[in-house]
């Protein structure tokens, strides 16, 4: 049995299954919310089951190669093909997108944001899932682009309809900004196709394998320009400094579910694009661009952290922390070493788990306190202790505590930036990277600063009298010692749906933190394979 080619329907099934759920949901009346939720849930569970089957059937001995590979003609005139395949880099992200969608749907069970309409909300979620999963398995540029764009609209509606007060501004900004990046990206894709086609008699193709073979042959100057277009497209999505300003607005205004998906998966489409497309297709240009990317990444790390320190709103703080964390991912990628890119891919998954979790928490805090203003929140550990401890756990994971997942994205990235690829040695580039190592390490200090500050302010101390049922505010220590069960009237601790939605993430953060090899074993061969062009 050839794992690489057998069961080639599996990825199509996993990718498009959510659309089947969407079709069924079309026929459910809008008022029947329970049925809509049920169908969405069943669809998501089925999708995860397909994903789990993929995990089981995946041949880990050959994770460098594309498995469950399928390829057909699709749009013959422009030589676009329908090509799907999955290797060690795609697998964790592909599966993560499925799991996150399921957890978000579970969370939505009793958290449909205003103005309601569970049916539409969940349908958008499932469409989103198809786009995300498709992006990670597409092995053809046009197909990749289609999936990449499919993601955009559901998220636009999610923010624009179910978002906060400034949802219209935020959603439009998100949409237009990303579109702007995509447009440049598409131009680059087409240019790449035309340039590589010119070299050969075969007539070119949009398949990734074609570009991997012929991309490196392009003249260096041309390659640098094509890379520029892709860079903008992906950098907006990541988002890298200075293309990040859509992110805090989108995150702050998006409903909890939207923020979680945005942080956990959508941002990774950008970094995935760098790892899968920009760098392997245009290695010469990548070498030229790497120092610039690394500098921007490090600016993002420090700048994002400073942005966090300036925030007064918990959700916006978490949003800014994404800028900083994605900076570490991009730094890893910019080193062009297997170690750095491994760290980056790990960092993507870890950031997805941790920041996704933080946004869940922010949503639940907002639901309970009706505010996310850091100044007004305090003593959460006393009023809602379980949620408070989970917040502490996630803050620790986010600041890169070893033994939890976040560390394995940051630490190897820092180490690899001290020792970047052989191609990046010389012309003072090595010294530049080494300075950036120190800058990035400084970023970990600032991360500890803003996260602990957030935690100390919101979780420790006595609860704000504003939110206690007694409302007296005269909590002496002795009264407080009364096992801390003076809950406010509408404050309840973590509920069942939240537990179900969060537990898998919390477990994953610990498991990957304690035993990172579980994921590295899968990623590493694929990364090493892609990074072979850069030597050492």
């Amino acid at each position: 049995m050839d794992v690489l080619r057998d069961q080639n329907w599996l990825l199509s099934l996993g990718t498009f299954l959510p659309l089947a759920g969407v079709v069924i949901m079309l026929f459910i009346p809008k008022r029947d919310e329970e049925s809509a939720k049920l169908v969405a849930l069943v669809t998501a569970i089925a999708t995860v089951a397909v994903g789990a089957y993929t995990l089981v059937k995946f041949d880990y001995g050959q994770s460098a190669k594309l498995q469950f590979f399928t390829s057909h003609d699709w749009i013959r005139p422009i030589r676009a093909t329908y090509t799907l395949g999955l290797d060690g880099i795609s697998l964790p992200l592909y599966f993560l997108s499925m799991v996150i969608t399921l957890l978000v749907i579970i969370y939505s069970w009793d958290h449909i944001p205003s103005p309601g309409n569970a049916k539409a909300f969940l349908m958008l979620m499932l469409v989103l899932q198809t786009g995300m999963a498709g992006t990670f398995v597409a092995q053809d540029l046009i197909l990749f682009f289609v999936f990449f764009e499919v993601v955009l609209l559901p998220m636009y509606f999610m923010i624009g309809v179910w978002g906060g007060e400034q949802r219209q501004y935020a959603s439009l900004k998100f949409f237009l900004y990303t579109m702007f990046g995509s447009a440049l990206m598409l131009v680059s894709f087409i240019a790449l196709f035309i340039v590589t086609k010119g070299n050969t008699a075969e007539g070119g193709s949009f398949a990734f394998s074609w570009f991997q073979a012929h991309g490196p042959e392009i003249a260096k100057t041309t390659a640098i320009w094509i890379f520029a277009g892709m860079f903008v497209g992906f950098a907006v999505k990541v988002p890298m400094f200075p293309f990040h300003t859509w992110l805090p607005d989108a995150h702050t205004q998006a409903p909890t579910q939207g923020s979680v998906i945005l942080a956990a998966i959508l941002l990774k489409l950008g970094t995935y694009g760098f790892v899968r497309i920009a760098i392997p297709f245009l290695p010469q240009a990548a070498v030229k661009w790497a120092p610039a990317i690394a500098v921007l990444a490090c600016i993002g790390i420090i700048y994002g952290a400073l942005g966090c320190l300036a925030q007064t709103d918990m959700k916006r703080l978490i949003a800014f922390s994404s800028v900083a964390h994605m900076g570490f991912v991009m730094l890893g990628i910019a080193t062009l070493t297997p170690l750095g890119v491994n760290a980056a891919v790990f960092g993507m998954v870890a950031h997805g788990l941790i920041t996704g979790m933080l946004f869940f928490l922010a949503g639940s805090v907002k639901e309970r306190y009706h505010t996310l203003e850091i100044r007004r929140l305090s003593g959460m550990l006393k009023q809602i202790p379980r949620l408070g401890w989970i917040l502490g756990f996630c803050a620790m994971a986010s600041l890169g505590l070893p033994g939890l997942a976040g560390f394995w994205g940051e630490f190897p990235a820092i180490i690899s930036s001290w020792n970047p690829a052989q191609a990046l040695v010389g012309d003072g580039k090595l010294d530049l990277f080494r300075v950036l190592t120190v800058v990035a390490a400084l970023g970990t200090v600032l991360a500890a600063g803003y996260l602990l500050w957030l935690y100390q302010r919101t979780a420790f101390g006595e609860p704000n009298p504003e939110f206690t049922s007694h409302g007296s505010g005269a909590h002496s220590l002795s009264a407080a010692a009364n096992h801390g069960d003076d809950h406010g009237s509408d404050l309840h601790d973590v509920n069942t749906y939240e537990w179900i939605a969060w537990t898998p993430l919390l477990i994953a953060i610990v498991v990957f933190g304690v035993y990172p090899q579980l994921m590295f074993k899968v990623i590493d061969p694929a990364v090493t394979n892609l990074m072979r062009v850069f030597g050492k």
Partner: protein
Amino acid sequence: MLLAAEDAAAEATHAAGWFLTHAWLIPLIPAIAFFVIILFGKRMRFHGAEVGIASMVAALVIAAGTAVQWIRYTGHEAPPVIRSWTWWQSGNVRFGLGQHIDGLAVMALLLVAFISTLVQIYSLEYVRGDRRFTHFFASLTLFSAGMLTMVLAENMVQLILGWEIMGLCSFLLIGHWWEEEANSRAALKAFFTVRVGDMGLLVGTGVLFGLLGTFNIADINAKVAEGGGFSHRTLTLAAVALFIACIGKSGQFPLHTWLPDAMAGPTPVSSLLHSSTMVVAGVFLVARIYPVFHQGLDINVAGQHVNLIAVIGGITVLIAAALAFVQNDIKKVLAYSTVSQLGYMMMGLGVGAWTAAVFHIFTHAFFKCCLFLCAGSVSHTGSHHSFDMKKDMGGLFRKMPVTAWTWLLSTAALCGVPFFSGFFSKDEIIDSAHHNHYTIFWIVGLVGAFMTTAYMTRATYLTFFGQPRGAAAHFVHGDHGDHGDAHADPAVDTHGAHDTHGDVRHSRPLPFAPHDSGWLITVPLIILAALAVVSGYLNAAPFHIEKFHHWVTPKVVEEMVPEGPAFRWLNALPSILLVAAGFAFSLYLCRQVYGAAASAWKGLTRRVAPLGAGHRFLVNKYYLDDLYEKVVVHGIAHPIAQGAYWINQHVIDGIVNAVGIGGKRTGGWVYRNIDQRVVDGAVNGSGAAAQGAGSALRPVQSGKVNQYGALLFSAAAVAALVLFVVNR
């Protein structure tokens, strides 16, 4: 376990016994116990404490077995026992989880397991009835697990793991009573300050890896000792970066400021933190990869009289000892004392006295742990949960004999009174500084010995002798107002001066007589005091005992550092005399200043301006806290962060918004002037595209988004499918 699959036991282990090859169990047991406590502790009979203590005892038993086997094993000059399981692999970069068992590791394992066990037993009584009893034991257990992981680390990454876990636990434990803001601030400060140093650890590890291509501790030591093939400048860089981490963790100047604030935690935590875990981690790291520092900083190179480690250590010895004079809080005296003693250890490593410095880790752990536990005992049953020596103590010697005697023995050991353990370790450091031609640090060491004795005499006098005051005199003052003592100064921060046990604090019937604590507290005290006396005889130079040296000092270090000085009583004489002088001087001063009789010494700092200024300078901790908190942290958190954010909102985002608005205006202009007038409806579709930018929100407001979205994607999906089928 998952890890067991890739057992890569080295061949060298065949001669070693079971304990030596299974030492990795020592941190694993408490680590598992942590999860058991946190998940099931509350439902257990003793709320999880039994699991914690059982795990520590198990770790102690294995550590003891390891020690016994190691002592037999060293008979044939054996290499370390190394085992490792792959934890992380990327291309040819690999590191594992495992164990690196040599004399140093065995010593530290035994020490940590032993002290942790005693502290946990002590805590049973001390934190009984606390509102977060289970959490307390869970954190304490994880704390020990972190330190144990670190000391047997096979590679730098595992070391970082243990190192950071300790940071986390210190955060949890210092902030144990987080309802009070002072405590949570102290916790934050501890974690954050150490984290600043950790930057050096991450960078230094990266530099070492770049230089030597390995994370493995044994390889690092061997390669550096061998020399050649790498740049000395880079090695220096690595050494400096790593040393910055040690400064943060071990409370060395100038990052020592978190340590006294860390007294906000419960006393058993202070005891554990200051004796064998956490703060010695930095010293341990220097000792662990000593060749890196020794070569990188040119220690013991002929003609060298100062180096970074010795300077930092030396400064720390003096400045911390000076601060200990002006503390009213007994725990803070001990905290600064710890800082000062850590300075000794660093200084010892800086002058090439490896064995003496590591031996000082060993002896210091016993007497410092004992002193902290004594302080806890005093507050527990003597001074009504206060730690203020001036307000609530005095004259406790007769009322708490066990506590007082164990305190006295440990104090003697700390001061370096001959024939107590501290004498053998500290004097060896001072002597080596002289012997290795680091004359400045020889003087620093001697002055430090004088100061140590003086401040400990003061603390002892205030606590156990003289007139009982406040709670010690059965008197509970309602507020913490000024009682008009000579040194009263409003700038003295009083936060963290109380172990507030929540409900216990106000409920104890008054008045009560100070008395000795229960056996759960006194037995650990007695054991530790006994060890404070005798532990020095493992390496007593005057009696030509060198067992500790023989068991612990690794070959690679032994070949590197100069041979220790031969002991001569004449060389020890200056320090002995200074200890005696410190005692006499301080006793005289205490009697004058704190005694009942009128004295010219009283209120001296108020009358003599320069003395007053000096006193204020000390009370304000050299204004370092102000510098860090008000200038550095406040600067970054406020002007810089706010400035960056302002730029974000107004410049970067301003451009984005301007482009958006400009685009919309252009679209509108094109639509009005070109589309409507020129093309005039001929191509309405192109106008819609321009309009789209301006009115993209219309469908959102129309409320029919769901149908719209669904239709759009159904259409896209169907179109894709059709194309696919058609093309087949």
